[in-house]
């Protein structure tokens, strides 16, 4: 990709991203595999299941959509539910603005297409830890993180389609994703305000768990962000 104009620094940022993205093949792989299995079970063709993984690339919403299609929910409801699951990514999009806002439009569009939980959280952690990164480096790092995950997501969907139901439940693949997300978030809990936000997020999400797909999480995230910001502002106040 535009190697002639990319400086060495950006190249090394790209490879740093690749390195940090590689571990996620262990979570994206099983998750995509499961999607392939479930989509095939539901009666989707290979093309349709692959269409989901290539055009949507948002695991949880893909599962939600296929689930509702098998239940014969109306198209509008399927779309609303699946898009609600993805609304958290609007928050991701907003929080990337201070770091990537001045990148060229096509790069911001490319980053947006690849902006899912793993790429987002890995990149934002790096941007926060290294405020001196240039914008081109940040873009290259993001693309680096996406590089191992995205093709694997597509390939493992295909493997899941072809392997069908041959994957034993005893592997507990369902729980690899929660472990991965917890592992990503724990090191980011670097202040009392961050911990307060996380606790608020958990409590509100559990209380609102019966709200329609993803909407409870949005409320929880909003409350948690306000909690974190309030605690941080309060702690910054000079002790008078």
């Amino acid at each position, binding site marked *: 990709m535009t190697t002639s104009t990319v400086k060495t620094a950006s190249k090394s940022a790209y490879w740093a991203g690749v390195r940090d993205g590689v*571990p996620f093949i262990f979570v994206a792989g099983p998750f995509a595999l499961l999607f392939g299995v479930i989509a095939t079970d539901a009666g*989707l063709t290979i093309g*349709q299941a692959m*269409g989901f993984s290539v*055009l*949507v690339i948002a695991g949880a919403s893909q599962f939600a959509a296929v689930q509702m299609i098998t239940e*014969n929910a109306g*198209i509008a409801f399927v*779309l609303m539910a*699946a*898009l609600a699951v*993805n609304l*958290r990514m*609007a*928050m*991701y*999009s*907003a929080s*990337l*603005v*201070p770091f*990537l*806002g001045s990148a060229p*439009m096509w790069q*911001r*569009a490319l*980053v*947006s*297409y690849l*902006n899912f*939980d793993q790429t987002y959280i890995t990149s*934002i952690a790096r941007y926060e830890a290294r405020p001196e990164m240039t914008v081109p480096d940040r873009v290259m790092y993001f693309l680096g993180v996406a590089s191992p995950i995205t093709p694997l997501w597509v390939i493992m969907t295909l493997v899941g389609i072809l392997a069908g139901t041959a994957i034993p*439940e*005893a592997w*507990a693949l*369902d*729980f*690899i994703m*929660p*472990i991965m997300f*917890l592992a990503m*978030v*724990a*090191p980011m*809990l670097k202040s009392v305000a*961050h911990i307060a*936000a*996380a606790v608020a*997020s*958990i409590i509100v*999400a*559990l209380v609102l*768990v019966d709200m329609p797909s993803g909407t409870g999480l949005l409320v929880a*995230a*909003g409350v*948690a*962000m306000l909690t*974190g*910001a309030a605690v*941080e502002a309060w702690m910054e106040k000079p002790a008078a």
Partner: protein
Amino acid sequence: MTYSAVEIWIVIALLGVGTFLIRFSFLGLIGDRPMPPFVLRLLRFTPVAVLPGMVAPLVLWPAATGGQPDIVRILAALATVGVGLWTRNVLWAVFAGVLTLYAGLAATGLL
């Protein structure tokens, strides 16, 4: 399933476009225009505000056990967070979580 092939493709196409627009929303439209400090402060908490809430129900009421709390999964989650906080390292945290999960599943399977 009563969906026709065309209907499924409509869902895929619209979900793909809609998801892209959600992801593109702020990053695409705001660009490098400055945002108010209060908003920036809120946004800094995005990852720790979204992911714990997303995972908590999966930990307490996993679909794989029919929504029944499962001590092995809860222990695996605690091990992940504990080691993550302690080492500040994603890979060690994953390792601890996966090890606890499979050790626990093996133990409960044997006992």
